[in-house]
């Protein structure tokens, strides 16, 4: 049993604006978000003694530490899985502070994935290695993007669950509705209609353009410290109640086509089992959730894997309005990665912090616990963040 539950807390968060062209380097973005998180927490950046980020982030820990004026790092590391790693830096940070390895851990994700490179563009790999196995064996069949690889998995989900394109549209409309009210969202003031969804061009069937997350420039960061210390800092402590990674048998990044169930949910279900077991909580204890939406349709098996619905029922759960603000389980109240920005899940972590503090734009009433999930169809991670009561 993991013993770091509620021993660590998010004391501050920070973010840059979200755009399609930040006009500055990724290191500058990371630094800005990190300094904003320190200021929000009310700590001096020199106190940062730990850093945890993603293997896919181009900013290494030492350069970020230097840029913010950290005196000495005692802990630094990166977690893999791309967007599946979105919550894993928090888990690393929580373990580091719970064990005393470090006291003040910065987690960040900074990217110019629209202006410097196109994150969703085709990837070519020929000689297979463990890192590029998926692209080496699927690229030559024409599956060279995350969209195409996950489209195959989600087509199977449609076959098994009866979910339709219209059900996927229902999620996209909710995300864009939430984003439309969020001034920090790229799609602020721009909700979509059902007609616009269906008219949007097909990328990789069944994914329309409006099912796909954005490519964004921006950065997000949080400061994790001990719960005790967080209580003495500027902001209310947001406790890391549970955190888990999930990588069950047969997991492969984006293209786990060689097991009986190819729907992107096994990894999430594995993380869910650990989360609920270590926190003693259940889906019913969540007032809202951030469900990873690299592709909006994956929110459906995501809701099911974490136990909010039975298999095949997410389509009705969404259709009935449950995931909207005012519903039984508001989801992605910031507009998600379809509507706000795609910062590889870290912007969802920031939204959960705001919701627990009671400072979100689309505030949900009386939020005590929030589930935040990471990318599905890849090795994944998730956290339960809780109000300090």
């Amino acid at each position, binding site marked *: 049993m993991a013993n770091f539950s509620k021993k660590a807390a998010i004391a501050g968060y920070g973010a840059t604006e979200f755009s399609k062209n930040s006009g500055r380097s990724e290191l500058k973005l990371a630094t800005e978000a990190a300094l904003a998180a320190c200021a929000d927490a009310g700590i001096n950046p020199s106190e940062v003694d730990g850093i945890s980020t993603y293997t896919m982030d181009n900013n290494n820990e030492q350069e970020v530490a230097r840029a913010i004026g950290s005196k000495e790092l005692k802990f630094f590391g990166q977690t893999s899985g791309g967007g599946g790693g979105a919550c894993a830096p928090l888990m690393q940070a929580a373990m580091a502070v719970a064990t005393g390895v470090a006291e003040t851990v910065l987690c960040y994700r900074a990217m110019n994935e629209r202006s410097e490179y196109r994150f969703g563009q085709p990837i070519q790999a020929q000689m297979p290695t463990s890192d590029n196995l998926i692209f080496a*064996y699927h690229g030559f069949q024409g599956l060279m993007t995350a969209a195409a690889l996950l489209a*195959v998995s989600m087509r199977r989900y449609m076959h098994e669950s009866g979910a339709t394109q219209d059900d996927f549209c229902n999620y996209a409309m909710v995300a864009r509705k939430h984003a439309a009210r969020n001034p920090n969202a790229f799609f602020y003031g721009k909700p979509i209609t059902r007609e616009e969804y269906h008219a949007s061009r097909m*990328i990789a069937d*069944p994914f329309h353009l409006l099912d796909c997350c954005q490519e964004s420039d921006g950065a997000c960061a949080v400061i994790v410290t001990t719960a005790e210390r967080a209580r003495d800092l500027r902001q209310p402590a947001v406790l890391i109640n549970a955190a888990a990674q999930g990588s069950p048998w047969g997991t492969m990044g984006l293209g786990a086509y060689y097991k009986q169930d190819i729907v992107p949910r096994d990894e999430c279900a594995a993380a869910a089992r650990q989360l609920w077991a270590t926190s003693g909580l259940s889906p019913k204890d969540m007032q809202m959730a951030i469900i990873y939406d690299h592709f909006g349709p994956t929110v459906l098996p995501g809701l099911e894997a974490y136990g909010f619905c039975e298999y095949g029922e997410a389509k009705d759960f969404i259709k009935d309005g449950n995931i909207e603000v005012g519903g039984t389980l508001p989801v992605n109240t910031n507009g998600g990665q379809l509507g706000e920005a795609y910062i590889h899940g870290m912007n969802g972590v920031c939204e959960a912090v705001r919701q627990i503090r009671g400072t979100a734009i689309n505030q949900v009433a009386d939020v005590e616990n929030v589930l935040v999930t990471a990318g599905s169809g890849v090795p994944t991670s998730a956290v339960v963040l809780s109000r300090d009561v």
Partner: protein
Amino acid sequence: MSYVSAPAEGRPLPVPTELSAPHWDGAREGRLMVQQCPVCEAYVFIPRRACPQCLAEPLEWVESSGKGTIYSYTIIHRPPHPAFEPPFCAAIIALEEGWHMLSNVVGTDPATIAVGQAVAVEFLDCGEVTLPVFRRVN
């Protein structure tokens, strides 16, 4: 429209390795080769050193019937590479022996493809490598 949907020229091609060579050599000879575990009899694809189920090695190379059904698929509408002319179909084929392989479904209007349709393998000479692709059968 020809509905070939899988280019023979100019497309990115796999690099056969010492491990995967029997699969590609077989394709060149018109045979769909797959690994099978001599202990637990599991079929193994993509090629591996040892059985992912029971870790036995070496695995044996056996010939598949090449008959199967479409387990899932996508129709790509945005060309990932200049050689591919969209829309085209990439599909997971469930072979009748009980293993999965990603391939292209050719010779069919992509709009008519559905999960569960019967397909059979054929071989596309792409120069350095011959690729197994699948065509619908009645």
